[in-house]
């Protein structure tokens, strides 16, 4: 297992290198650059060329890529071309906000989504199933943006329990987390229900029932681990969406996180910002997917056996 983890960690290196090259190339090929923003209505080709030289954007592609790569080796993400602020310091400030929202929303998504899915599956075609699926349908149908506004209306504007926007104590994160979690809960509940229904009539479940195993043990010790594999994959994928796609929630609640930073960087053609955000997001996502794979091995002995088999083969 340890060797597998090490191998996966080493695989992160080519993945991130690939991300750097692909994103850098796409940005290089994309029309426009930061000079357009910096010069505004003063833009002329001559002024842009001068500024481009100042920013090093006039150099050949391969030179720019090499320069950027060299900076990265020194863990230097450069400065924002628009604000002049070191990108690393901005990331250090913004990433925790996004991670707090992302981690909590994923945790809530996982708990509620799985529980709702299990409830729906074990009470198939009963009212619990219907209610769970209504909630799931609602969550899928309601855009996160709209649900966020509804939450603000209910809990900030009318009940005045929670702040509507801004940063501060933990209470400021409640509504963003809830808004971001809803869609995930819905998707996960449907996925869990579907997976549970696949195993509910399996022979091992019938055997457990026949042996008189308690119902909750059948559900949580036999059925759920077998149904969790696709669910864990879904959770991992949702985390990626939360990291990169939380920009709408960040905008609605005025939480300046990494998603908002990335979008602003794209709009400003601020290459250093876009590159840094993409690298960080891809690294975190790769780490999360690794964690998901390890969790899958933990809950499914068959996968663990595959690791063991690989190690055995490798040992020969």
């Amino acid at each position, binding site marked *: 297992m340890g060797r597998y983890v090490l191998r996966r960690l080493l695989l992160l290196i080519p993945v991130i290198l690939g991300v750097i090259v692909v994103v850098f190339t796409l940005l290089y090929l994309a*029309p*426009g*650059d*930061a000079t*357009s*923003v*910096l*010069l*505004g*209505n*003063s*833009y*002329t*080709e001559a002024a842009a060329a001068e*500024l481009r030289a*100042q920013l090093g954007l006039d150099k050949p592609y391969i030179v720019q890529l090499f320069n950027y790569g060299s900076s990265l080796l020194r863990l230097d993400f450069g400065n924002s071309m*628009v*604000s*002049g*602020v070191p990108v690393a310091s*901005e990331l250090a400030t913004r990433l925790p906000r996004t991670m707090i929202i992302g981690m909590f929303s994923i945790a809530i998504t996982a*708990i509620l989504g799985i529980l*709702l899915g*299990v409830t729906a599956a074990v009470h198939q075609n009963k009212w619990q199933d219907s*209610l*769970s699926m*209504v*909630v799931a349908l*609602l969550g899928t149908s309601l855009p996160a943006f709209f649900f966020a*506004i*509804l*939450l*603000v*209306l*209910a*809990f*900030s*504007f*009318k*009940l005045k329990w929670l702040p*509507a*926007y*801004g*940063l501060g104590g933990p209470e400021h994160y409640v509504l963003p987390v809830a808004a971001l979690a*809803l869609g995930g809960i819905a998707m996960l509940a449907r996925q869990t229900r579907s997976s549970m229904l696949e195993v509910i009539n399996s022979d091992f479940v019938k055997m457990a029932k026949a042996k008189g195993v*308690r*119902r*909750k043990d059948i*559900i*949580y010790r036999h059925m759920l681990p077998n149904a969790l594999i696709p669910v864990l994959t879904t959770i991992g994928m949702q985390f990626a969406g939360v990291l990169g796609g939380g920009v709408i929630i960040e*905008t*609605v*609640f*005025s*939480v*300046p996180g990494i998603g*908002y930073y990335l979008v*602003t960087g794209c*709009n400003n*053609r601020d290459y250093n910002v876009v590159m840094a955000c993409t690298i960080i997001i891809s690294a975190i996502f790769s780490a999360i997917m690794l964690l998901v794979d390890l969790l899958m091995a933990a809950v499914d002995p068959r996968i663990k056996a595959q690791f063991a088999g690989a190690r055995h083969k490798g040992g020969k």
Partner: protein
Amino acid sequence: MGKKLPNLALALAIMMLLSLGAACAPSQQAATTQQPAASADAAATTTTEAAAPAAPATSDGAAATTAAGDAAPAATTPATDAPAGGTMKVALTNPFTGAAAINIANPYRYATFSQVYETLLAYQDGGYVGVLAKEWEKVGDYTWKVTLHDGITDSAGNPFTSSDVAFVMDSQWNVGHNLYVYYEVGSVSVIDGTTFELALNTDSVGAFYLIGSQMLMCSQAAYEGSPDNLATMPVGTGPYICTSYIEGSSCTLEKRDGYWKTGDLPKASVANPDVIEISYVPETVQMSMAIESGSAQVAGQVSMNVSKEVDALDGVTAKYISNGTYNGLGFNMKGRAVSDNKAFREAIAYAIDPNGLIAGVYSGHATPMTGYGIPTASDYDPSWISSISYDPEKAKEKLAEAGYPGGSGATVTLLSNNVGEDAIISELVQGYLAAVGITCEFDYVDPATQSARRAEGNWDLALVGGMGVLDMSLFWGNIYGLSGETGMSLYFHSDPALYAIYDKYKAAGGKTAENLQALYEYERDNVTWQPLFNKQVLYTLSDGYADIYLNDGYMALPYLGTASK
């Protein structure tokens, strides 16, 4: 355990549904939502402020250029009420990037930091007052001598001197200069600690005032002493200090002890609330709820989509402020077969109704632009009206005259950015042109590439605009560039006759009434571009804060400290 967890999940699900129900339930205080723009009528509580009277800056040479001291040409107004203390909560729609004084020009940054960083001058009540500058006078065609107040210090205790002014103006070049007028800064010669001479590249008086009132100042010591050149924590000479700044989220300003300036203060220097808490709320519905709930006692840059709702609120005053911007339709006359046809340009100008655009996009809160210039320009002549007003039948006649009877085969490409108001305006323009038979295709680009795409020149029409114009020299400078056809050209004209007139006007001593008139007449007779409207911005002020000074006619720059409670 086995049953409790699913039950908990169900209970949470039910709570979620109930909360949604609660949010959607009808209420006396029903939250506002975005409404399609429709009409221009405003409720009784609305105060519409007209554009400021013409700025006193003149541009006709030395005779009127001996403005000196706080007395001229400004209207000095006593400070507002005595300090009232307390905390004022402000919500602004537009966050911005970077808090440094030396940065690309951004009116939204000014709205937050105008009382942390100071400027040499400030536009106030239609004139200019000195802020850092005590006296100023024009000592040559291109040169201004400025004397600073004695004893200026920033909040970190650094003295602010003439050398700091020179440092800021020199450094501006290194961080971007997206404002046309920044190109007019030539050099700064320091005479002594409080006196310097500013040599401009133009004899435009307005250029001096624009630079003086827009370029935020900071001390070199504070700038260089900051690990990120003040980008995340501003340090200025103003009456407030910034104690917390979270980009894109919030900013807290606190009244500064030991502010260097005393006595009869310009409005920009007044500090009434002890603390100003600013939140950035870009989402429109959030903003309207913040206004309605009172959590935003002052709200700025509010979307016109909610103008009707805020007009109807009790205890809230909606102010529609002319912000000195102008918007028009630019014709690309450089090698474009269609728009290089005068009759065709006239047809387009006749086909578009500015009032329709204003109603459709700004809920009626903008002013049709009838002439070639804006009233805030000191030497603007109100008689310079466009000879063209909305007339679809006339448009069709002109179209036939241009060789496109019924619009057959007439296709134009409209360059516009693909977000916000511009995208909606483009669609309305497309509709107006279709009504007279012209096919309008979009070249939508995102804002970051718009300037570059405009320079490529593969378009016929473009939505264009500018702001902060104090005299016609600056106005035309924005439109026609620094040095005629070889310089910047926002509207991308290519007409040697036009540029000959412009260059004559722009030359030293050329800013005469005769040259002004000649330029106007050429524009009018040749429809080199078509003026559309002057925008307004919406501020809402809760009871107790209605006396905040909103610098109308000039970027709608609010001096938040002038609010008393």
